[in-house]
């Protein structure tokens, strides 16, 4: 074994002991080849490496930032600099602010943080890859395709103009009849699918793929924050996708969800949108707090104060953020009791935020600051985010919010929160981690210019907005009258953007370009940091860790002299998987709490199917956009084919005997065919995703039910219950047969299992056909009243889930006949049974709701 010397840190922040070295195995280059993506164009299309996907996600976010964040805001500020100016037309102004909000909220910060996660997590956590490299690639492609589909509206001269919130009925078919809002709904729909896909990957990555010994309480805070963020994405974006579906049904298929004249409700959209929209703000600020929690201790040369408190605060913010959406709706006429509830909930979030603040300040107190650019941005974050937090508590008070709401005050508040609270930590993170992945240190002198220009710019640009807002200037106005006294404040804001923020960003871009060309060499650990990623060379190898590190501390690089000593069996284990004969991409899952190795499995390799499937998703949404309805079917077939091909079982690269031999020697089971542990988690998250979507539809049903005194409306009789009951019995019975079949498979009776699956297909299929026939017999439509709209949509969702189960069952049946599953290897079958259980429950609850809902009085 050779020990490659660590490059000496250039001008290190004093760090005392040497950074611990790692033992490179002889197989370093072979490992690197094994984990690399193919070369050339094909490699670009099939690549799944976390480095590749992570960097791509971040560049995508930055690309959209330059396009939508900067360009739009400069134009808007130039227009508003003077009263009654006419640099741009009202239509263009409305398009600009719609685009500015939409792009920053959906296409900038989200991909940047997901990119941070995919790129950094394997290094921070001491694993080799993310759990689902292909899902990560799929997430990237869909985010990119969605963003481009949204932006292509410019080419069709139908640019969305109803705000990033797209309130109904303004965004509905009557008041926005052209394609503009379809680009908004459907383009973002594609991107939302991608955001959720990457969230799956992050959740499982943090919970299951860590270095041996990294217990829950040793997970670096940034990883904790990404875990919370990913859960929030799952819980927030799923309702938004459902809401977008309802809006598109209104726009494209004539349903009446949001039309108050026909049983719909304009406020239903606001509720669904803000159940997404408020958590979305914290989806952005939670990982930002995670970055700050990593950087402040390193540059204070002190351990973070109150680690447990900070974890609790992150989790608390995650939960609380779902309980305060209605504070965006304080002026829609809610009752005082609801107002005070949401006011209290909104204010309560200041408590976990206070915990974070004092933990950071105490950390600074207990150490000695080193003034590097990354640290400067963290201090700037503390100042600006504090102001944004204080104004946030103010607008949580309904009597004051009735003045501030939808005024420039809120514009000032939210930019303090999002620029100070999110963009500054992103800059800090880039300055901090850039050397790790490029090997070059960003220039400190340019960094200080970058910081001070932005810090001054944010205050000059956004502070005056608070004042002019309370003077009476509303948001989203392209002009204002002279003589109101608003001109001077607007002029100052414009100067802040043009003279400070734009040059500040330009300095940053220049710094990156200049550093890539001739930057100072960084060395492995230029900051003397404590977390694992700094134990790899800069830039790190394709496969990350040749020998997985063994973690015995929360600050391994500060506390451990050697990252590869520990319990003898663990030492033997990490070298075992770092060496042949494991001639495949071996990943390790660990116990969620104790961090002990659970399983060695084969991580998926590069594949074209994620791109293919993403293209299918794009076809579905684009076909609806351009009203080429048959192409929706084509897209659906592409997605189904893509998912099947993607998951096509691959011959395990090891025999069962070899697997057992490894397990006997190392004490950790091997699943060379693919992970059981991770698939189980993915199944659970998949079921959670479907359940959240279903739950959103149920909430919509009952919201409309409560809004309408007469339900069903006049002219629709109560439905008969006999045939739906028979259909439900058939579908549920069919699922139970599959469950029975799984038991036979475990007893190695494959024939009975095949028979059971065939029985499932027949019986559940009959149930689905019967229910569809029942629907075809109804004489009410989905266009006449919101009752019909939600009736058919909710039933359609339930039937769609069951139809998905039929496809899954058919594929499992086919693979069983092909001999894929045995009494020992059949995890996929067990997971299908979980899905069946969920589908049965959804069928039961869904049809109980549509058939018994009208009978509730």
């Amino acid at each position, binding site marked *: 074994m050779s020990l490659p010397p660590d490059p000496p840190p250039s001008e290190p922040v004093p760090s005392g002991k040497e950074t611990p070295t790692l033992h490179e195995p002889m197989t370093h280059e072979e490992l690197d080849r094994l984990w690399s993506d193919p070369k050339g164009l094909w490699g670009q299309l099939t690549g799944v490496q976390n480095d590749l996907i992570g960097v791509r996600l971040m560049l995508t976010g930055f690309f959209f930032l330059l396009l939508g964040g900067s360009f739009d805001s400069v134009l808007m500020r130039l227009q508003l600099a003077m009263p009654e100016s006419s640099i741009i037309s009202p239509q263009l102004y409305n398009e600009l602010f719609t685009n500015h909000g939409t792009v920053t909220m959906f296409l900038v910060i989200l991909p940047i943080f997901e990119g941070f996660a995919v790129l950094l997590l394997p290094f921070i956590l001491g694993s080799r890859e993310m759990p689902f490299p292909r899902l990560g690639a799929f997430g990237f492609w869909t985010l990119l395709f969605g963003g481009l589909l949204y932006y292509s509206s410019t080419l069709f001269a139908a640019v969305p103009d109803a705000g990033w919130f797209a309130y109904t009925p303004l965004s509905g078919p009557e008041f926005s009849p052209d394609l503009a809002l379809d680009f908004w709904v459907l383009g973002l729909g594609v991107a939302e699918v991608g955001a959720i896909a990457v969230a799956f990957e992050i959740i499982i990555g943090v919970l299951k793929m860590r270095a041996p010994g990294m217990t829950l309480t040793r997970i670096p805070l940034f990883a904790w924050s990404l875990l919370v963020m990913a859960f929030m994405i799952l819980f927030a974006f799923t309702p938004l996708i459902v809401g977008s579906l309802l809006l598109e049904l209104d726009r494209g298929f004539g349903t009446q969800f949001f039309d108050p004249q026909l049983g719909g409700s304009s406020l239903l959209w606001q509720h669904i949108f803000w159940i997404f929209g408020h958590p979305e703000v914290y989806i952005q600020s939670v990982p930002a707090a995670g970055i700050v929690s990593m950087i402040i201790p390193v540059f204070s040369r002190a351990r973070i104060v109150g680690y447990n408190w900070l974890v609790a605060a992150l989790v608390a913010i995650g939960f609380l953020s779902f309980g305060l959406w209605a504070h965006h709706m304080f002026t829609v006429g809610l009752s005082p009791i609801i107002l005070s509830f949401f006011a209290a909930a909104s204010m309560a979030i200041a408590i976990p935020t206070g915990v974070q603040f004092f933990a950071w300040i105490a950390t600074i107190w207990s150490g000695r600051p080193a003034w590097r650019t990354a640290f400067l941005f963290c201090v700037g974050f503390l100042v600006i985010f504090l102001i944004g937090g204080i104004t946030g508590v103010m607008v949580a008070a309904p009597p004051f919010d009735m003045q501030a709401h939808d005024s420039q005050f809120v514009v000032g508040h939210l930019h303090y929160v999002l620029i100070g609270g999110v963009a500054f930590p992103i800059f800090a993170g880039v300055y901090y981690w850039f050397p790790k992945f490029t090997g070059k240190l960003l220039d400190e002198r340019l960094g200080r210019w970058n910081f001070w220009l932005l810090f001054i710019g944010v205050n000059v640009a956004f502070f005056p907005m608070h004042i002019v807002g309370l003077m009476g200037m509303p948001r989203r106005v392209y002009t204002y009258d002279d003589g109101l006294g608003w001109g001077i404040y607007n002029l100052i804001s414009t100067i802040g953007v043009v003279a400070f923020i734009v040059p500040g960003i330009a300095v940053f871009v220049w710094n990156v370009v200049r550093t890539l060309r001739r930057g100072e060499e960084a060395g492995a650990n230029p900051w003397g940091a404590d977390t694992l990623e700094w134990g790899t060379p800069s830039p790190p190898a394709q496969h990350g860790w040749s020998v997985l590190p063994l973690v015995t501390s929360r600050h391994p690089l*500060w506390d451990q002299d050697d990252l590869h000593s520990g319990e003898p069996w663990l030492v033997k284990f990490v070298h075992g998987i770092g060496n042949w004969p494991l001639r495949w991409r071996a990943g390790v899952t660990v116990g969620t709490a104790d961090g002990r190795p659970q399983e060695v499995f084969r991580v998926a390799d590069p594949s074209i199917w994620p791109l293919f499937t993403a293209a299918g998703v794009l076809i579905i949404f684009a076909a609806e956009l351009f009203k080429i309805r048959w192409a929706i079917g084509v897209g659906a077939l592409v997605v189904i084919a893509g998912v099947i091909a993607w998951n096509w079982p691959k011959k395990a690269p090891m025999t069962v005997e070899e697997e057992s031999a490894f397990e006997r020697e190392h004490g950790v089971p091997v699943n060379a065919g693919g992970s059981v542990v991770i698939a189980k988690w993915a199944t659970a998250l998949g079921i959670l995703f479907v359940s959240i979507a279903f739950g959103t539809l149920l909430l919509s049903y009952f919201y409309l039910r409560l809004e309408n005194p007469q339900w069903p409306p006049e002219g629709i009789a109560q439905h008969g219950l006999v045939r739906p009951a028979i259909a439900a019995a058939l579908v549920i019975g069919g699922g139970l047969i599959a469950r029975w079949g799984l038991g036979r498979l475990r007893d190695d009776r494959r024939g009975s299992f095949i028979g059971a699956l065939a029985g499932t297909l027949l019986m559940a299929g009959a149930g689905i056909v019967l229910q569809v026939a029942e629907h075809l017999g109804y004489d009410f439509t989905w266009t006449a009243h919101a009752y019909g709209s939600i009736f058919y949509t909710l039933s359609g969702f339930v039937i769609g889930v069951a139809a998905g189960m039929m496809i899954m069952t058919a594929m499992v049946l086919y693979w069983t006949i092909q001999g894929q599953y045995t009494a020992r290897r059949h995890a996929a079958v067990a997971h299908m049974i979980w899905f069946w259980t969920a589908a049965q429950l959804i069928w039961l609850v869904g049809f109980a709701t549509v058939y018994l809902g009208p009978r509730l009085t």
Partner: protein
Amino acid sequence: MTLFSTGSFDPQGPVAETMADLWWFMLVLGTAVFILVMALLIWGLSRRRPPTDERPSNESPRSYDWWVLGGGVVLPVVILIVVFGATVLAMTDTPEEIPANALVIELVGHQWWWEVHYPDAGFTTANEMHLPVGRPIAIEMTSADVIHSFWAPALGGKLDLLPDGTNTLVLQADEAGVHNTACAEFCGLQHAEMGLTVVAEPPEEFAVWVAGQMEPAAQPADESAARGEEIFLSSRCVECHTVRGTPAAGDAAPDLTHFASRRRLGAGAAPNNSAELAQWVADPHTIKEGVDMPASQLNDEELAAVVAYLKGLK
């Protein structure tokens, strides 16, 4: 116009007063919190400490846990209880029920103008609302199309006009004054030019105004105005506009019965003078792009006549 002297900084009624009091209270408290936290931060950053050239090898002193508990939990809880208490007090001071002596005004939002009814007196006007000083006002609001929001910052907070149903806002003006208010919920192309002039005036003047508004439209005063009326009534104008006392009875656009008494035209888009009016009638899109009203095909003489007629609708 100086700092802190207009809009919600200059409350002219009890509701706005309550809101402004809450704002100043929270501003003082927020500033105190900001100064406290900043002082701790700056002190922590600048105090002299011996150089640490060790890897931080020990856990931070336990004493810092008290920072998190005291500063991060206890301090915010105490402050939030105070703020929430002040909020609830302010909410109880904001009337929810319609007071018995309130004047009821019905407000209907349109893209992009305001329809104003006085149900007791039984007349309709547009884009200008008059209020008697010293009497509670209940504005019952709804929308004919998309969501709008009414906001007169010196008199009280905002409330949305929904197509779903009626919202009621109670406020009161204690001082006479003219408030040029704007729609506060984005409502489409001309959201920025959807102004409502709110005129608070002494009860006597208000009574005179009401009496005037209840009258049918004034007869044309001269030949030119009479010619203008003729053109008006024989053109497409009547499909959308109402002039009480004439056959014009359209309801898709502002009531013009007492149009000349209003301060602004085009829902706040321009001052209501003859020059602007002539331009508006000739082609309103040059003043307010995108409105429903089409450009007219009148020659100069006809245009002057129509303007004379409209300026006579006092």
